């Protein structure tokens, strides 16, 4: 299982891929809606929390070298807990990825393929993820390593290209809906850092496990800067995202980029980069789902699982009757899933496992 190892940079990009793909859709808008003009302050606050949490996770994982959250669950509660936690993570990854895929495909359909049935757009991504997973373990990680920097640079470009349309005064009133909304209720925006979920699974795969702390801090830090850039772009440019919902707010911002009459309509280039990033994200998530499944079932090879997981993602993506349901899931349910599973459940298991280990050490 751990034959193929992940480099430090690959691991950082892996964590970033989750943040990046969610940011393309409704994430920045949700942050802005939740905290209004205090969105940037809230993100800075939440980013500090996220860095502290990821640091704690690394510290807690240190006591179980080479083990991921599944192994640690087994240590804590035996096979039963291992299966429960493994099952929860598989469902979490599959459901959130499928719904995200559905939302992204719906956006693509509205923008570029109005006459095409959604199933064909979804199928293109499924073919991509199945093909990528048939290649070597590191193939999609290396592709991700190439694509994610492009997305990050594109977002920096988006920020600076639109700067002349910014109204920086929109950062005021400084506390948005108030201190409680910004610093207490706003903690919910911690769900923006869903990429931390991969931290629980990385230790067995890392070429240099001692670099986990560096990976955690750098990836969370870059995610924070990236999120602040995206949210600032929306907050400073538009007044309407608080009252009006758009399918892909950042896509809307790309439509405003113009340099004279020659350099226009860059949104297609952005959409292309985002589509590639999305395909990478899908193949990576499927890869991790299969690895968890392999760990739970002890099957020898993952190859037969590729098509099954691909079709599962397709099937779940088709469950919502229309875009409103899948969009609602992303804005109303997804943040709670992240907070519950990534930040509460997994962290609790790590803490309990560490306490158990300490107890065992003391009694020994």
């Amino acid at each position, binding site marked *: 299982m751990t034959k193929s190892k992940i480099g430090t940079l690959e691991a950082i990009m892996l964590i970033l891929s989750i943040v990046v793909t969610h940011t393309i859709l409704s994430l920045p808008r949700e942050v802005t809606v939740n905290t*209004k*003009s205090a969105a940037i302050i809230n993100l800075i606050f939440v980013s500090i929390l996220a860095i502290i949490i990821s640091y704690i996770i690394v510290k807690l994982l240190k006591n179980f070298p080479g083990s991921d959250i599944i192994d640690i669950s087994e240590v804590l509660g035996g096979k039963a807990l291992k299966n429960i936690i493994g099952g929860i993570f598989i469902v979490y990854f599959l459901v959130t990825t499928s719904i995200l895929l559905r939302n992204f495909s719906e956006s693509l359909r*509205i*923008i*570029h*393929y*109005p*006459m*095409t*049935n959604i199933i*064909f757009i979804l*199928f*293109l991504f499924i*073919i991509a993820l199945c093909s990528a997973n048939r290649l070597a373990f590191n193939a999609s990680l290396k592709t991700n390593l190439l694509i994610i920097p492009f997305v990050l640079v594109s977002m920096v470009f988006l920020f600076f290209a639109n700067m002349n349309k910014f*109204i920086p*005064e*929109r950062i*005021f*009133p*400084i*506390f*948005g*809906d*108030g201190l409680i909304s910004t610093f207490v209720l706003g903690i919910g925006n911690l769900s923006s850092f869903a990429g931390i979920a991969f931290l629980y699974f990385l230790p067995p795969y890392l070429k240099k496990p001692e670099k986990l702390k560096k990976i955690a801090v750098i990836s969370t830090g870059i995610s924070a800067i990236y999120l602040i850039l995206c949210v600032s772009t929306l907050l400073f*440019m*538009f*007044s*309407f995202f608080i*009252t*009006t919902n758009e399918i892909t707010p950042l896509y*809307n911002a790309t*439509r*405003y980029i*113009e340099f004279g*009459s020659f350099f*226009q309509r860059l949104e297609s280039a952005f959409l292309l980069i985002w589509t590639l990033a999305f395909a990478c994200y899908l193949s990576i998530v499927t890869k991790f789902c299969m690895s968890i499944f392999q760990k739970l079932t002890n099957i020898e090879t993952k190859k037969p699982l590729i098509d099954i997981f691909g079709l599962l993602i397709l099937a779940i993506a088709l469950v919502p009757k229309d875009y409103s349901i899948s969009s609602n899931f992303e804005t109303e349910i997804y943040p709670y899933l992240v907070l519950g599973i990534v930040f509460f459940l997994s962290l609790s298991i790590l803490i309990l496992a560490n306490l158990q280990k300490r107890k065992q050490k003391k009694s020994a």
Partner: protein
Amino acid sequence: MTHLTRNLIILIFIIVFIMAFSGSYLSLSIDNLAYVLAIGIDKADNDNLQVTFQFSTTTQATESGSSEKAPSVVNSVKSSSISSAINLLNGYMGKQLNLSHCKVIIFSEELALDGISEEVYTLINDTQIRPSANIVISKCPAKDYIEQTSPELENLISKYYEIFTNSSKYSGFTADSTIGKFFNNLICKMYQPTAILGGLTTKDLDSESNLDYHENNSIKSNNAPIQGENGAENIGMAAFYRDKIVGELTALESIAYLTLEDDINRFLISIPDPKNTGRYLDIYISPTKSPKVKIDTSTSSPFIQMELKFSGQIYSMSDNSEYLNTDILNEISENCNQYLETLFSNYLYKTSKEFKSDINGLGKYALKNFFRTEEFDNYDWHTNYRNAFFDVKVDTTVKSGMLITDT
């Protein structure tokens, strides 16, 4: 799985996908599309709209290689909404209307008086409409504006629509008002929307002789002293409160608007010559700093203090001019200050008392006076802006003439 079966499956997939995506590609095929360059929206009877579409046709190249002006096609439809007008015309033309190259959206003043939010929301919802498409409020029927638009120096009307707002940067007589900005301001709590004011050029220059262009630069579309082949003109701006037009800005007031928006490079003003009574000096004014605005919101009558800094270069020249003399330059600078202070004060009071509309979004400077959004909402900026008082301070440094400094 044998090699043949695998290839067969791949082939089937390719065929299925070609069929699935061909619908979308066919709908975007250039042969099936009619590219709209401008949309004109007029009020029609029974709450209907008269929607006029201007299409481009291909340029006809002559044997000598020079190209003739590409004629444009104008079609009008009477319908209940823009979308049904598009639908009707799709059937009539046998092609699908594509708005991705639509550069201008013209609303008649009559329609703008009733409110245009429904039309703006519909257009902004369209994936094809660019947020950079300009909004023009026409003092004549929008259809007439489109029909009369005939650029003199451009063969392609689309090229004209692309660049006609560029002059706002150096003349300031109109603004680059786009549908994206209009929509943004329509929903904003601090801003009110604006649009370009359009109209038809005067056919007889003598009929406008009663205007004094030095003392009262009150020219705007439909009364500008311009005669030319292009029957349409864009001078001045239309001010809105929410989605309804509430007033018009003249060319000079448009300069004030653009200066406060920090969206103008330079503009020309005519001030009385301190040395020659009855004569005027033309001075190019360039803003040197962004406007500094302070707002006191302690009462329901906001007190707005504004500091503006400009540099100037004397453009007009006559004999006995001494534009290197510091005293003379200081005197001219002082005259400029007085002129500009009056201009900006009058403009601001006009927006506040007459239009009752904060088209410059001065409310954004008041935001920092509040800690919570709710406090700002309760202050009700748009209502209180009507009670606002202004104190404008202008600091102009007229540096010299241009090529000739003394005569």
